[in-house]
């Protein structure tokens, strides 16, 4: 960021949404009206909402795929689906849920919430933020476009070679998957960078690193993890595409390649990824629970550290997906032990949550139910993971329905439940209306019941030796009854989700209007209006504790504090000369610089379109299309980077 000599001392003012300055803020922040504004906006709230909505749409598609599979498996020797259809469905189900729902929905939450949680006016790179979303959307469409070519990916989401090689999967479906994942990787990567820089740079003054909400810790850890993990998978998929289309032999043993290379590369990414899609969700719980338990989270530091530790360990355990691939026993034992070790940070988190509830005074809202229910599912998913970490036991468990049960407890239990809880929790903030509690409780219980009926018996199916990814099974293996129960449970669970969506739609129209802070919560987002103004905060709040909105209440207990170390949300820096927010230092969040934020722009959308076109070109072997699209990408980046006087930064004067 370039700087010019003339400094400016930010005016300290008190927030007042009727003031002149607010009008000025509105002028400079709000998007152009109409479709143009909609396409060009870089407002993190807009983008966050789009992320969440898109992710939920993919959730519905993936869910329907799941239900179809359950119909096929309900009884032995069903012929509802052909083997080929089944393969495509279970593959797309995995791809959809893991790539197109689980992470994006969390990115959505974080996108929407971060600046509000951090007392800032936008993410550090608003346009990068928009790009990340558009690329995600197009990548999703790209992946599903495979059906247009007559066949979707059909090799499971981990897509082992050599089945994924041209010899055994000649169709374009695997190319679509490979290229789609490389494209998708771009979205994830830029998103992660954005989160990291945002945390480093744009927290409100005083929000030192030990005061940020756990959700921020979770997303930060996930982002760093993604930055390190995604390159592995992008590389792997690109190598696969080269093997298929350029004639290289990275994975072809008969030409000097090595099939195991794929498994290593994929799981080096795959395992950290699993943590990337649960840690932020755990963050949601860690921030939500205290609100409803009417007390701060027990062991904030411990939980924050546990979050980071989990991810660090997560990078050293990828081999536990490959225990049966004939690797040396010694290394297996090491990776097994490392995988078990993850129990420790997890238990820290669990007991922190338990303690929070135990020592608090829970208010039984729907959101709270989701958070509390989550804890049990987290434990069940955790211990089943702990069992698969035992190498010799895993030789039996792996690739059976036990693993299917495990990963659904982990991903649904630790991702879906907190996310939906999170929706109930922040819905009023986002829409200005409260969701219906009665229907909400129903949706929770139906989901919770259905979920356990659907997925707990899968453990037993695993013990009964049912392998995953089989499109049918013959009679007399004892798998019939549990499968029927699973199918029933699956539909109940689906019903629960349906209730939730109904609730969302109803509440959007008829929900009770919500005050700025309906739950009397403690973090900054509740200090501004519901829904928040486009500029988030009329004045940048100044933070003095982890729970800025609870300081008065908590200090009733110990009157030991003075106004000096109180957070100030009413009065703060008024930055109303164009799109501005405050940049602060890494650790202590001292005011450092006034950041001029870029305005709305089409370049993210154009760049995303151009990139996608380039990948389409590769897919169709039309190197002309690729070339043109590549040039367009460069052009849009030039447009993007074109210097704007309005973006010159000025430093505040210190006295």
């Amino acid at each position, binding site marked *: 960021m370039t700087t010019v000599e003339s400094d400016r001392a930010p005016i300290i003012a008190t927030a007042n949404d009727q003031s002149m300055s607010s009008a000025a803020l509105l002028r400079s922040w709000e998007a152009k009206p109409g479709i143009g504004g909609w396409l060009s906006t870089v407002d993190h709230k807009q983008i966050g909402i789009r992320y969440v909505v898109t992710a939920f749409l993919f959730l519905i598609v993936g869910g*329907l795929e799941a239900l179809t599979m359950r*119909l096929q498996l309900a009884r032995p020797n069903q012929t509802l*689906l052909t083997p080929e*259809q089944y393969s495509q*469905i279970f593959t797309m189900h995995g791809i959809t849920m893991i790539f197109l729902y689980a992470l994006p929905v969390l990115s959505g939450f974080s996108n929407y919430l971060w600046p509000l949680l951090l007392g800032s006016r936008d993410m550090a790179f608003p346009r990068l933020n928009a790009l990340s979303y558009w690329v995600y959307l197009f990548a999703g469409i790209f992946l599903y476009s495979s059906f247009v070519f007559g066949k979707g990916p059909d090799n499971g989401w981990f897509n082992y070679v050599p089945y994924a090689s041209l*010899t055994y999967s000649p169709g374009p479906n695997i190319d679509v998957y490979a290229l789609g994942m490389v494209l998708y990787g771009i979205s994830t990567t830029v998103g992660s960078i954005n989160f990291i820089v945002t945390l480093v740079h744009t927290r409100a003054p005083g929000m030192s690193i030990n005061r940020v909400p756990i959700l921020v810790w979770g997303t930060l850890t996930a982002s760093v993890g993604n930055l390190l993990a995604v390159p592995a998978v992008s590389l792997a998929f690109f190598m696969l595409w080269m093997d298929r289309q350029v004639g290289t032999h990275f994975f072809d043993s008969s030409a000097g390649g090595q099939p195991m290379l794929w498994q290593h590369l994929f799981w080096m990414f795959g395992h950290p990824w699993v943590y990337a899609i649960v840690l932020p969700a755990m963050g949601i719980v860690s921030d939500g629970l205290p609100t409803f338990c009417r007390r701060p989270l027990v062991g904030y530091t411990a939980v924050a550290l546990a979050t980071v530790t989990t991810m660090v360990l997560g990078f050293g355990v990828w081999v536990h997906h490959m225990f049966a691939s004939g690797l040396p026993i010694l290394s297996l034992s090491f990776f097994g032990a490392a995988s078990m070790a993850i129990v420790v940070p997890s238990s820290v988190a669990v007991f922190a949550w338990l303690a929070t509830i135990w020592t608090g005074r829970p208010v039984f809202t729907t959101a709270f139910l989701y958070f509390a229910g989550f804890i049990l599912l987290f434990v069940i998913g955790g211990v089943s993971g702990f069992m698969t970490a035992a190498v010799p036991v895993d030789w039996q468990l792996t690739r059976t329905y036990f693993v299917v049960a495990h990963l659904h407890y982990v991903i649904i239990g630790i991702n879906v439940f907190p996310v939906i809880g999170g929706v109930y929790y922040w819905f009023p903030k986002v829409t200005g209306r409260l969701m219906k509690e009665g229907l909400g409780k129903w949706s929770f219980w139906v989901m919770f019941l259905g979920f356990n009926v659907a997925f707990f018996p899968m453990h037993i199916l695993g013990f009964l030796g049912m392998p995953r990814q089989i499109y049918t099974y013959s009679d007399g293996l004892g798998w019939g009854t549990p499968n029927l129960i699973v199918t029933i449970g699956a539909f109940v669970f689906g019903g629960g989700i349906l209730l939730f969506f109904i609730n969302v739609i109803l509440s959007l129209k008829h929900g009770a209007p919500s005050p700025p802070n309906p739950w009397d919560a403690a973090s900054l987002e509740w200090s501004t209006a519901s829904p928040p103004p486009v500029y988030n905060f009329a004045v940048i709040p100044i933070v003095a504790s982890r729970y800025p909105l609870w300081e008065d209440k908590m200090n009733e207990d110990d009157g030991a504090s003075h106004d000096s170390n109180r957070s100030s949300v009413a009065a703060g820096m008024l930055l109303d000369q164009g799109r501005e927010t405050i940049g602060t230092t890494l650790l202590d969040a001292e005011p450092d610089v006034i950041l001029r934020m870029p305005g709305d722009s089409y370049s993210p959308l154009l760049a995303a379109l151009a990139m996608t076109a380039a990948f389409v070109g590769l897919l169709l072997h039309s190197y002309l299309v690729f070339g043109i699209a590549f040039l367009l990408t460069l052009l849009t980046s030039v447009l993007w980077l074109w210097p704007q006087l309005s973006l010159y930064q000025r430093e505040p004067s210190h006295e």
Partner: protein
Amino acid sequence: MDHCAARAGMGMLAFALLTPLSGCRAAQGGSSMTAQSTMNLPAESAAGAVPLGQLAGAPAETATSLSIANPYEHNPQAIQAGRQLYLQMNCAGCHAYNGKGNMGPDLTDTYWRYGGLPVQIYNTIHDGRPQGMPAWKRALPPDEIWKLVAYIQSLGGTVSVSNYEHARQGDRPGDLIAPEAQAEAQP
């Protein structure tokens, strides 16, 4: 909830999901499903009607039967299946793993002793040829042979039906043609 209602619901849901998917198989053409791929094959008799012998020797009136197209042409699944057959039936032993020939002729060049049209290659495989090419008519069902032909076509040296008349005169696409020759070429 009510059972029948639930079942009905499931059914409808399944139907809704399957309609888009049901497209897949048709579009896949020669997937590994032998049952369905035996359709739309030319009748044995039709292919059999094509005389053996050199391109140049093939009398014109058989051009119709010569124009029998390979149902699997450009079908990626069939080409890979054909490649597997090429290895499993020991074709590589004579024509080499890269198809460039060794004991048997090069299959990647444009010279074909017995004609480079799909149906001529079909016949070569089906009936064998005098200089050591075995006949596969009993071992390989017709659509397997067509898959082999599809693979051989994918090697690039074969003659397309559209280009047949030119090929028999030794022209290649893009060749210059002297006006006189042009005149004579008119039937």
